[in-house]
């Protein structure tokens, strides 16, 4: 019973049984018919059944719902598991384990919750990774790059996917670091380029992307950046190549110029590092600043300087070569072409009309040509040289033969004798020489078909001229000989008549010199004074007399004083001092008469000064000059000095001058002779030598007068002013007042 009591069903059944019983009782009492009873009972039974059915339905529905929930949860779990790529391990187990549905549901719900938590976690991971990927790829592709879905794909949250994503991220990160490396490399390149080109690296980089200014981490590594970096590197590289070519061009020219001009090492040193890169490739050229515009400008300046130098040097070189050529021509006795005269060349080069280098080439070509020619000419030229020398010697010999004093013993006489001997031998060989020369020259001319030119004159014509001259000389000689013979005859006749025989030699010599000499008026004078028979000289011999007479008249007073004063070197006794007096006077006279050539000639014979340095003269000369200079304030010291001079090297000083004098006179003699050789004496020279001393004789007048008291000279004041040759020539006249003041 307890059981029943405990069991609600039993209770219900009991309750139902009791109720039915009660009902039966009721019914019994009521006396319900059996049918009603049955009907009632059926109804009751039906109602009960209905109620049961309802409850069962309800329970059934509840179970189904539960099942549904479980299934749903399971499905959800499965889906989660599947999205997470995990097997729903414990679901079946739990199903087996779990007794009731509710248990099952609880387990499943628990699992589901767990899974959902994991899923959430996973999702978070995903989104994190995705975010990173997104970030990196934006970095890489740039903001404008395609947009990666930021949303996590809910359907696939498996670890595989995660790993995949992680790989992707890894890859991206790798790429990023690669790119960063690349950027760094590019930046380094850029930096080196900038340094080579002398550009500001920071600025360049800033232009490409501003964030390069920051730290390494923040560097932009996007494609754009890379691209722009690359392009700017490319651009700079192009620039570098271009500049490098420029520099190399410059250095090549520089090297050439150095070579050409042999520039000193010190000059080359500063540019040595430039020129060593002449053949360097683009990569090899890395020295900072090597290609900066400044540096290139610098090099350019140097090159242009060298160019400039070169152009001038070139000119010099051309001129040098040119003069070399001319020298060569001179040596070979060729006449250089006139169109390439040096001045013309200089002008042409300066005006730029001619390129010096081509000119140089041309000149060098010419030199080569002439060198070649020189071989062929050499032999003939040697002969010509010998021949010319022989001719010279011949003419010397001729002249020498005419010198009557040639056998006088004197300094160097033996040498001259020897020379004459040699010359004679040479002269004997002359005809042979000439024929050989002519033969050679003709052969040469025939071979070449051109004339052999010697200093622009055809050699053959020269030789011809010479032979003609020789013949002429020969004729002359014969003629002279005949004349001499005739003279001899005449003289013998005279002798027969008058008994005395004038020396034919003297006469001859006089004639000869007058005919031959072209310059030495002295010779002529000498000869004329010695042989008064020659008519033309009469005039000259008379002159001194007239002067003498002039001297004799009005100036005898001052003259004496002047004589004393002026007696500079004249220690040789009365006659010459007389002459000097005459000179001084004549001088004044001449001045008064405003001199002319005729007057001038008259002074010649009045030796104004005695022979230079005769044994005693220097001393006396000095003493005299003291006397002369007495009037100056220097009087006392000078006297002393001169006295000293006088005393000390009595022996040495005077002797030396004598030697020189001797030499001088011989020299003079020789020189006087030389002109005789010249076949046609220039006509104008004779008077020149004659009148020259006049000028000197004239000038003394003033100082002389200064010595004398000038009282009696007052009236000549106009002519007092001395003038130098230049002043006379310029017609310069000192204003009168000045002249007076000065006098």
């Amino acid at each position: 019973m307890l059981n029943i009591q405990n069991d609600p069903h039993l209770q219900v059944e009991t309750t139902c049984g009791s109720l039915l019983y009660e009902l039966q009782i009721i019914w019994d009492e009521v006396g319900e018919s059996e049918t009603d009873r049955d009907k009632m009972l059926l109804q009751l039974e039906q109602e009960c059944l209905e109620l049961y059915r309802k409850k069962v339905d309800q329970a059934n529905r509840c179970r189904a719902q539960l099942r549904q929930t479980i299934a749903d949860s399971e499905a959800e779990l499965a889906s989660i598991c599947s999205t997470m790529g995990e097997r729903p391990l414990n679901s079946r187990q739990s199903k087996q384990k779990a007794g009731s549905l509710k248990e099952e549901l609880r387990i499943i719900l628990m699992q589901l919750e767990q899974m959902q938590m994991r899923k959430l976690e996973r999702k978070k991971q995903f989104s994190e990774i995705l975010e990173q990927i997104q970030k990196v790829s934006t970095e890489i592709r740039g903001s404008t790059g395609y947009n990666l879905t930021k949303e996590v794909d809910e359907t696939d949250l498996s670890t595989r996917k995660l790993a995949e994503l992680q790989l992707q991220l890894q890859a991206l990160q790798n790429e990023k670091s690669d790119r960063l490396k690349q950027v760094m490399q590019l930046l380094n390149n850029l930096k080196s380029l900038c340094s080579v080109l002398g550009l500001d690296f920071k600025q360049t980089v800033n232009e490409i992307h501003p964030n390069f200014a920051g730290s390494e981490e923040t560097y932009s590594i996007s494609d754009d950046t890379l691209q722009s970096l690359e392009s700017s590197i490319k651009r700079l590289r192009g620039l570098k190549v271009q500049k490098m070519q420029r520099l190399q061009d410059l250095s090549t020219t520089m090297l050439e110029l150095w070579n050409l001009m042999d520039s000193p090492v010190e000059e080359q040193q500063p540019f040595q590092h430039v020129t060593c890169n002449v053949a360097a490739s683009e990569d090899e050229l890395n020295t900072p600043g090597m290609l900066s515009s400044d540096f290139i400008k610098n090099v350019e300046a140097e090159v242009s300087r060298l160019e400039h130098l070169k152009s001038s040097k070139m000119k010099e070189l051309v001129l040098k070569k040119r003069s070399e050529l001319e020298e060569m021509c001179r040596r070979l006795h060729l006449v250089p072409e006139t169109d390439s005269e040096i001045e013309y060349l200089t002008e042409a080069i300066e005006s730029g009309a001619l390129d010096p280098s081509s000119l140089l080439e041309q000149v060098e070509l010419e030199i080569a040509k002439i060198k070649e020619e020189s071989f062929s000419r050499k032999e003939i030229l040697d002969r010509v040289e010998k021949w010319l020398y022989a001719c010279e010697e011949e003419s010397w010999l001729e002249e020498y033969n005419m010198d009557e004093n040639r056998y006088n013993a004197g300094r160097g006489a033996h040498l001259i004798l020897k020379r004459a001997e040699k010359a004679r031998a040479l002269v004997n060989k002359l005809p042979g020489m000439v024929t050989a020369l002519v033969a050679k020259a003709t052969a040469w001319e025939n071979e070449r078909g051109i004339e052999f030119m010697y200093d622009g004159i055809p050699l053959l014509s020269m030789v011809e001229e010479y032979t003609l001259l020789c013949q002429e000389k020969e004729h002359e000689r014969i003629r002279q000989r005949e004349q001499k013979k005739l003279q001899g005859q005449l003289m013998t006749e005279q002798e027969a008549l008058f008994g005395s025989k004038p020396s034919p030699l003297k006469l001859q010599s006089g004639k000869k010199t007058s005919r031959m000499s072209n310059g030495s008026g002295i010779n002529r004078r000498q000869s004329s004074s010695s042989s008064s028979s020659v008519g033309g000289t009469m005039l000259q011999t008379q002159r001194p007399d007239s002067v003498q007479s002039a001297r004799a008249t009005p100036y005898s007073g001052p003259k004496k004083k002047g004589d004393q004063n002026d007696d500079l070197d004249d220690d040789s006794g009365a006659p010459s001092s007389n002459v000097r007096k005459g000179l001084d006077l004549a001088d004044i006279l001449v001045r008064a008469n405003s001199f002319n050539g005729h007057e001038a000639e008259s002074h010649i014979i009045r030796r104004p000064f005695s022979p230079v340095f005769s044994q005693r003269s220097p001393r006396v000369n000095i003493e005299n000059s003291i006397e002369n200079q007495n009037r100056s304030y220097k009087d006392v010291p000078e006297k002393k000095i001169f006295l000293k001079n006088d005393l000390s090297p009595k022996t040495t000083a005077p002797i030396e001058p004598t030697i020189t004098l001797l030499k001088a006179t011989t020299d003079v003699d020789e020189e006087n002779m030389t002109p005789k050789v010249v076949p046609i004496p220039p006509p104008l020279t004779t008077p020149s030598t004659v009148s020259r001393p006049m000028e000197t004789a004239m000038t003394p007048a003033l100082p002389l007068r200064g010595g004398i008291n000038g009282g009696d000279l007052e009236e000549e004041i106009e002519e007092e002013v001395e003038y130098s040759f230049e002043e006379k020539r310029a017609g310069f006249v000192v204003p009168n007042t000045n002249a007076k003041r000065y006098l």
Partner: protein
Amino acid sequence: MTAVPAPTLGRELSNSPLDGITNLRFSNTSDHLLVSSWDKSVRLYDASANVLKGEFRHGGAVLDCCFHDESSGFTACIDSNVRRMVFNYGKEDILGRHDGPVRCLEYSYATGQVITGSWDKTLKCWDPRGASGQERTLLGTYTQPERVYSLSLVGHRLVVATAGRHVNVYDLRNMSQPEQRRESSLKYQTRCVRCYPNGTGYALSSVEGRVAMEFFDLSEASQAKKYAFKCHRKSEAGRDIVYPVNAITFHPIYATFATGGCDGIVNVWDGNNKKRLYQYAKYPTSIAALSFSRDGRLLAVASSYTFEEGDKPHEPDTIFIRSVNEVEVKPKPKVYPNPPA
């Protein structure tokens, strides 16, 4: 024969002046030769190459010229102007003006001044660095007793020879008055004065074949050394013909000197030993000017009639460049003869 010029005279410069040569000077730095002439021109030659490098034409005869540096020079002109020439550009400008023809000029490397002497009886100093124009270049005017005929400089010493045989010695650092006033110890007109390269004195030549060797130092010992000698004379049968001595030039190395006279002869002397070292063959006409090149290896000889006998026909004016042998200019040791017994 006649086709070959006498080798003894030296090489003849082509394009020589067309009228009398007044002076010629070698550059201190090269073999360039500056030549002034009566033909109103100044010519610049490269003497070693025998090239006429430039020519300037002035308003009147040019009486003197000198180098400033390698690229410029100065001239003294008869039209009273002192000019500066720049050879590279052929440019010339007037440095200043005298009141009369300018006879001679010198450039002082010591002071950077140009000193000019004129027939207006003044000496003027110019600073060529000043801008062109008299007021900026003229440093001073110094009156001389007579017309200036010749000038010479050594260091800071300036010797001025004038007409009337005056010789004034100046110190360029104090030009207010002459350091010394002298009278030429020669009796005749002064032709040329040149200082010794060692700066102790000067040689002075006259129209009367004579050269005086003078010393600046006025002490007795120094003055005892002075002397004069005759030269450029022709002695014929006991008669002398005396020629003016137009030019003196000192050898830059041996301090010997050459003289040139109207006899057309150039003599080389050793002033210390009182010896003539050499006599060159006679030139066609008077020697108007002489100059040794900077190393003394070349001697430029102007053979040009100097108007000593007035206007008359004469030989053409020519410049000869002769190479100088050492023997010709090197002093020979003095030979002492045996003392008299």
